[in-house]
């Protein structure tokens, strides 16, 4: 009995030492800090701003769709001198101006949060992947120390980002980043790069849109007096719809690798 108690104590001691060792090795393993809490918060904020803009625009865009439908059903295309059609065109123009005004009001907030996220990620990428890593170390990070097993992992990214609502996109980013603790560094590096490039693109797009809004508003104010629907107007509305609410047809499907053999246990002494 005494012996079994001693054995238990010994086993417990060994287990405790092993556990401590494992914990300290986890604690000592270098991790890359690409998503500080500020980035997570910025992403959440951007998602909220995008949702507010969508909510504000949804009703206006719905109204625009109805008005355009009515215009086409009334065979107003080409009937510029018809007073009824002119009235319809003016209504469409007024709704279009309303859409531009909402966007003008909301875009600065959106731009601010997108730029904040981009700047935080930029700093992280530059320091953690750009300045602290050699090219070889970057490869090792991306491969996650699994080169020997060579297991093809499911990509954690949101590549091919079109086809979903803007707020949903940010919501997905937020969820991915907020639960990134469970993922390896390799996923984080790819995820951070993907989001950063997307933010950079979005920021540029917002900047251009803001410049265009001023011009389009002036043009439409002039058109109001004539009651004309320009092709540009229809194009802009279509573009805003696809950015904000997504376009299912453009959703890209990424093919997975074919199943390969798993008989590659050999590791050469020359392998690096």
């Amino acid at each position, binding site marked *: 009995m005494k012996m079994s108690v001693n054995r238990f104590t010994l086993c417990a001691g060994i287990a405790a030492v092993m556990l401590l060792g494992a914990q300290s090795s986890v604690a000592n393993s270098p991790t890359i800090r690409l998503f500080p809490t500020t980035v997570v918060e910025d992403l959440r904020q951007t998602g909220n701003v995008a949702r507010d803009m969508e909510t504000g625009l949804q009703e206006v865009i719905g109204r625009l769709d109805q008005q355009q439908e009515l215009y086409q059903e009334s065979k107003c295309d080409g009937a510029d001198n018809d007073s009824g059609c002119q009235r319809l065109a003016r209504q469409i123009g007024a709704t279009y101006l309303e859409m531009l005004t909402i966007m003008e009001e909301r875009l600065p907030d959106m731009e601010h949060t997108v730029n904040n996220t981009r700047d935080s990620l930029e700093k992280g*990428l*530059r320091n953690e992947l750009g*300045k602290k890593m*050699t090219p070889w170390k970057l*490869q090792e990070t*991306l491969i996650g120390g699994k080169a020997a097993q*060579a297991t093809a992992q499911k990509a954690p990214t949101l590549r091919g980002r079109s086809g979903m609502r803007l707020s949903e996109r940010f919501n997905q980013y937020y969820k991915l980043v907020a639960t990134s603790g469970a993922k390896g560094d390799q996923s984080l590096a790819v995820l951070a*790069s993907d989001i950063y490039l997307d933010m950079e693109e979005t920021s540029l797009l917002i900047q251009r849109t803001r410049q265009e809004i001023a011009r389009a508003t002036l043009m439409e104010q002039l058109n109001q007096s004539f009651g004309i629907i320009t092709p540009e107007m229809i194009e802009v509305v279509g573009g805003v719809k696809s950015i904000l609410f997504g376009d299912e047809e453009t959703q890209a499907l990424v093919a997975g690798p074919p199943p390969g053999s798993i008989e*590659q246990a050999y590791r050469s*002494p020359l392998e690096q």
Partner: protein
Amino acid sequence: MNFPNNQKPLLVLAALLLMSSLLAACASTTPVCGSPQSRNLSSAIDGVQTSLMNGCHAHFDRYYDDLLSIAEGDPKPENKREFSEFLVWSSDKGLLSTRQAEDYYNRFFNVKFMSMRGDYNNCSHTCPNKKKVLFDMERELGDKERGLLKVSRDADGYYRADQLYQEVELVLEATCSACAAGR
């Protein structure tokens, strides 16, 4: 030593004959560095090893390519080991440096890319040469397709290398853009 004048042409002739026979002797020892004849990888490696030891070491690149072609005819995971052992032997015999042997092996049989190496950080080393690095990696991916997929039948390994290439492309685009913004 004085020779009579009438014997001088004979001496010149004798000297010429001696030189030509010496040259002929040298020519006869030039090794024949033909390609391996066997379609069996192990036998082909034996043949190549004999040729390399008999003065054909300048043809190492061609022999390595010949061996890869032979292995493509009978792809199997064990081929990796055959190539590794052949390269270790080449290094032991002083035909290749350890670094060269590693390059030959990893370029064809490892998931990681030898063309993406360097002692300096990515901002200062990789980003200024990003285009060249990616171009070299693309070429190396072709070699990995041969080594991993066609020679070793390691489809998972090859697709992981392909995925790594795509990830490096994306991460470098973002990182280099971030490095440039910080300047």
